[in-house]
């Protein structure tokens, strides 16, 4: 949530204004014309910031704009079509449904960042859920929740590692390897569930595990969460801006931080208030926030994250820079396996059971769609962890709304497909804009 710093504060006061691109290009051709002197910049004003933002939009760096507009359209449409869409009960449902998609989509974002794909995620997540459930069966073997969860995650992470090894060492495209994985792990899910139960459904009786996606925070805890999110955002942003200003580097203007914080506060307080008027904020929302923060931190603040982006942007450059490209790739597939496992455990918790249907349906398509719709480029190197949340929000809202309307499955597939197509077209258009501006 805070990693837009690097992108948004790159402002130079002297020339961030309305200097047309061709003038800048000409300046580049005449080295004697003094341009902005780096290093002496003062914090920039709100106007410059806004100009830079519009400039970026035109250059194909769309950020969260299409998502904001998309959500607006979706909420208005379904709100008009169905009067239960706006209810607090449906809102908390939406939060619960979204958590599973967003969690798995975080892993997908990492895979897409290195310009790979993982088609096996849905069934890998199901393997996680099934393994945990089997280990939890009372007396057979009746493991404690923590141990069952740990082993399930270890297994899904190992699956990611294995697939990563095959992809990097044998040089087989991830598309093919994970397609094979899709078949293999769906088979494993079937074998495990049918051998454990005649009907192929195994119930979860552990209270903690059931609580993962079925428990809610008290009203007070919900408000505390809201306060932590808002203060955390304001604190991190102000601290960063303060330090950059102290070092004489350009920084996010205070006015922008205030506006962003107020916007975040309105959304967060509204959401908590609305959730509290029903069952409260789902406990799973806390898990999701923790995962989002943690992986955002990994992607934007650690060397590892930097290398992930570099590999997505130019693998040859990464290799020549001495980065162990294969190692990073394998680790990304392990992250994918881990987050898929977490998502599978959440899905099992939500249904309080696993069945032969685990990981099936359109789960795979929806999590990949979430990452892409959220703004992660299929071409690699572009995107943020937060896009998993934003995309999942869109996907879930559409699914939820269509379910309320009682649309036929066929219609739902067509509509979801069209939304995904739209997102991919926007991505392709943005990429074209980026390269077009890049050449100029």
């Amino acid at each position: 949530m805070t990693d837009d710093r690097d992108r948004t504060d790159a402002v130079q006061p002297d020339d961030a204004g309305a200097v047309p691109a061709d003038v800048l290009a000409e300046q580049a051709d005449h080295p004697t014309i003094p341009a902005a002197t780096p290093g002496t910049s003062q914090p920039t004003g709100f106007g410059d910031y806004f100009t830079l933002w519009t400039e970026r939009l035109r250059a194909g760096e769309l950020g969260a704009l299409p998502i904001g507009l998309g959500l607006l359209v979706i909420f208005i449409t379904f709100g008009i079509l169905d009067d239960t869409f706006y209810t607090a009960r449906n809102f908390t449902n939406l939060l619960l449904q979204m958590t599973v998609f967003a969690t798995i989509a975080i892993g997908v974002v990492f895979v897409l960042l290195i310009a790979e794909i993982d088609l096996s995620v849905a069934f890998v997540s199901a393997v996680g859920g099934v393994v945990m459930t089997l280990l939890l069966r009372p007396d057979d073997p009746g493991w404690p929740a923590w141990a069952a969860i740990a082993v399930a995650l270890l297994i899904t992470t190992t699956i990611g590692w294995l697939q990563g090894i095959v992809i990097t060492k044998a040089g087989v495209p991830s598309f093919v390897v994970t397609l094979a994985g899709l078949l293999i792990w769906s088979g494993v899910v079937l074998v495990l569930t049918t051998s454990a139960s005649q009907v192929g459904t195994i119930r979860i009786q552990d209270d903690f595990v059931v609580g993962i996606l079925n428990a809610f925070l008290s009203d007070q805890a919900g408000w505390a969460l809201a306060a932590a999110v808002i203060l955390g955002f304001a604190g991190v942003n102000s601290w960063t801006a303060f330090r950059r200003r102290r070092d004489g580097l350009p920084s996010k203007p205070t006015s922008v931080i205030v506006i962003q914080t107020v916007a975040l506060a309105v959304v967060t307080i509204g959401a908590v208030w609305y959730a509290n008027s029903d069952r409260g904020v789902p406990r799973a929302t806390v898990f999701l926030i923790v995962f989002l923060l943690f992986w955002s931190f990994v992607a934007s603040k650690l060397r590892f994250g930097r290398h992930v982006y570099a590999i997505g942007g130019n693998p040859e450059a990464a290799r020549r820079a001495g980065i162990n490209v294969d190692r990073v790739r394998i680790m990304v597939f392990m992250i994918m396996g881990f987050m898929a496992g977490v998502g599978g455990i959440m899905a099992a918790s939500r249904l309080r059971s696993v069945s032969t249907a685990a990981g099936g349906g359109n789960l795979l398509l929806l999590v990949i769609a979430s990452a892409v719709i959220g703004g992660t480029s299929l071409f690699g190197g572009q995107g943020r962890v937060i896009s998993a949340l934003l995309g999942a929000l869109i996907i879930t809202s559409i699914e939820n709304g269509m379910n309320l309307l009682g649309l036929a499955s066929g219609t739902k597939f067509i509509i979801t497909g069209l939304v995904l197509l739209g997102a991919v077209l926007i991505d392709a258009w943005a990429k074209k804009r980026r390269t077009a501006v890049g050449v100029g």
Partner: protein
Amino acid sequence: MSATPLLQCSGVSKSFAQVHALVNVDFEVRRGEVMALVGDNGAGKSTLIKCIAGIYPFDSGEVRFEDEVVHIHGPRESAALGIEVVYQDLALADNLDVVANMFLGRERTRSGYMLDEQSMENDARETLDSLSVTTLRSVRQAVGGLSGGQRQAVAVAKSVMWNSKLVILDEPTAALGVAQTRQVLELVKRLAERDLGVVIISHNLHDVFEVADRITVLRLGQQVAVLNREDTTQQDVVHAITAGTLTHVPGMQDTGAEVSE
């Protein structure tokens, strides 16, 4: 300009299967000098610098760096010695900003694990300033949005940031317009003024004569001439490139004849 060579390759050879890309080549660079490496397509220029950078091993011959015999086994080892290469195809990641590219693979961290963006940004700026690269709008701009000359400047600045002693540029001006070429050549001269050794590969003799102190000519994998720019003309160099005397008959194995100049 000091007379002891910074880098000295003696009698180095390199073959790819049937192709003798380098045959018994002598090559040296001194501190504070710009050495141009010229020759026709396929003469072995890129192969020579890739071997120096450790991307391929030499088959035979000796390499001395700062008077020590060295065996370079990879890009990391050459970088550790202070050898930086700006490749023909640049090797920048378009999606990353200038700072991230300049520190790629060598990111600085705070308390051991978090990226130290501030200090990297400061040093990137300082290096760009010291090379008088003034056309960049912001060091936080993605490299994909830069012009060819700006990208080249970033790549060169990246190579001098690491206390490097020898900077090798493979056709740095090949894709550039007149003004941007001038910019890069100015940069090359500034590197030599800092007492670095500089190797520049170019097909453009006009550029070569503008910056080089000496010129090494390769022809069919052999070194056919080392010329002082002041004592030579473009005509001489063209002649050496196209008809320089070969001491080893191409296609035949080394008969033991010594390279003479």
